[in-house]
């Protein structure tokens, strides 16, 4: 690991220098394995936050208080330390320029990580695919990549919508409350646009998003989900 970047109070990005890295596709993850002195091993999956075009691999890790792996990665690991990882992994929850669009990306919490890779890939590849990202966080200080997402949202063809579910500043101009059918209809695409849809986040959010979109007439076969929880990413 060559650099540690503070993203939110609970989240850090690990910048990795991997001389033998074979490259990856936006949306893929890696498995990180920790081995204790007594041989006990714990392994968790983390989405790749960097695009295939980026020079270094970036993982963004949310610290789970009762986690076995994330507290070590966020609090203990220091630049210069080595990590054992396996990857890239995943062939389903990936997007690349050739898959086309338009794209609807719906994230909850650290479910935004693979979408940073997709947005960066969209920008770096010179693609003109239209992208709409809807991202739900508890509060403004929990929004990961806030500045980068705001900047991405000013690019032609990219729209970024944030919603805050627990607390928001008085002058907050974004959305308030959980992602529901109404908000999806407001910021998403019409089924007639035949968007490619990706949703990543905690299981209840991802399943409710998928149910709402199917009920609104979107083709289930164009919806890809990645659920995570305390035992996964």
């Amino acid at each position, binding site marked *: 690991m060559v650099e540690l970047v503070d993203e939110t109070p609970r989240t850090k990005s690990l910048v990795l220098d991997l001389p033998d890295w074979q490259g990856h596709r936006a949306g893929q993850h890696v498995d990180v394995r920790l081995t204790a002195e007594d041989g006990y091993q714990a*392994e968790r999956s983390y989405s790749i936050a960097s695009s295939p075009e980026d020079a270094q691999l970036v993982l963004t890790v949310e610290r789970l208080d009762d986690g076995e792996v994330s507290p070590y990665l966020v609090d203990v690991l220091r630049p210069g330390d080595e990590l054992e990882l*396996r990857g890239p992994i*995943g062939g389903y*929850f990936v997007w690349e320029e050739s898959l086309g669009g338009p794209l609807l990306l719906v994230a909850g919490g650290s479910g935004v990580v693979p979408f940073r890779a997709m947005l960066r890939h969209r920008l770096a590849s010179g693609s003109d695919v239209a992208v709409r990202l809807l991202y739900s966080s508890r509060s403004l200080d929990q929004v990961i990549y806030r500045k980068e997402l705001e900047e991405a949202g000013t690019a032609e063809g990219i729209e970024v919508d944030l919603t805050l579910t627990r607390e928001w500043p008085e002058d907050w101009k974004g959305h308030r409350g959980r992602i529901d059918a109404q908000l999806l209809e407001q910021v998403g695409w019409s089924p007639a646009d035949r968007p490619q849809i990706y949703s990543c986040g905690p299981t209840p959010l991802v399943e409710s998003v998928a149910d709402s979109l199917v009920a609104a007439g979107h083709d289930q076969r164009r919806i890809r*989900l990645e*659920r995570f929880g305390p*035992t996964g990413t």
Partner: protein
Amino acid sequence: MEALDGNAIAGGMLEVFGSEMTDVRARCRFCGDTSYLAELRVYMRAPGAVGRCQRCMNVVLVMTSIRGTARVDASGLEMPG
């Protein structure tokens, strides 16, 4: 307990099968539903991971990891040749 999905066991499946499996479509032997392995409902807190068919919720795949080596019993699925 909340289910994850086949993405959560992609690394173990890659280790056992030797190739990326989440974008492979397989048929449930119980209900006949064909879906991507990424779409399995996966329960991680059992001793090992349990994968259930997204439609009928029967157990179609069990993955265990013993001393760092993953093993998969996918006898509930018909994999493509």
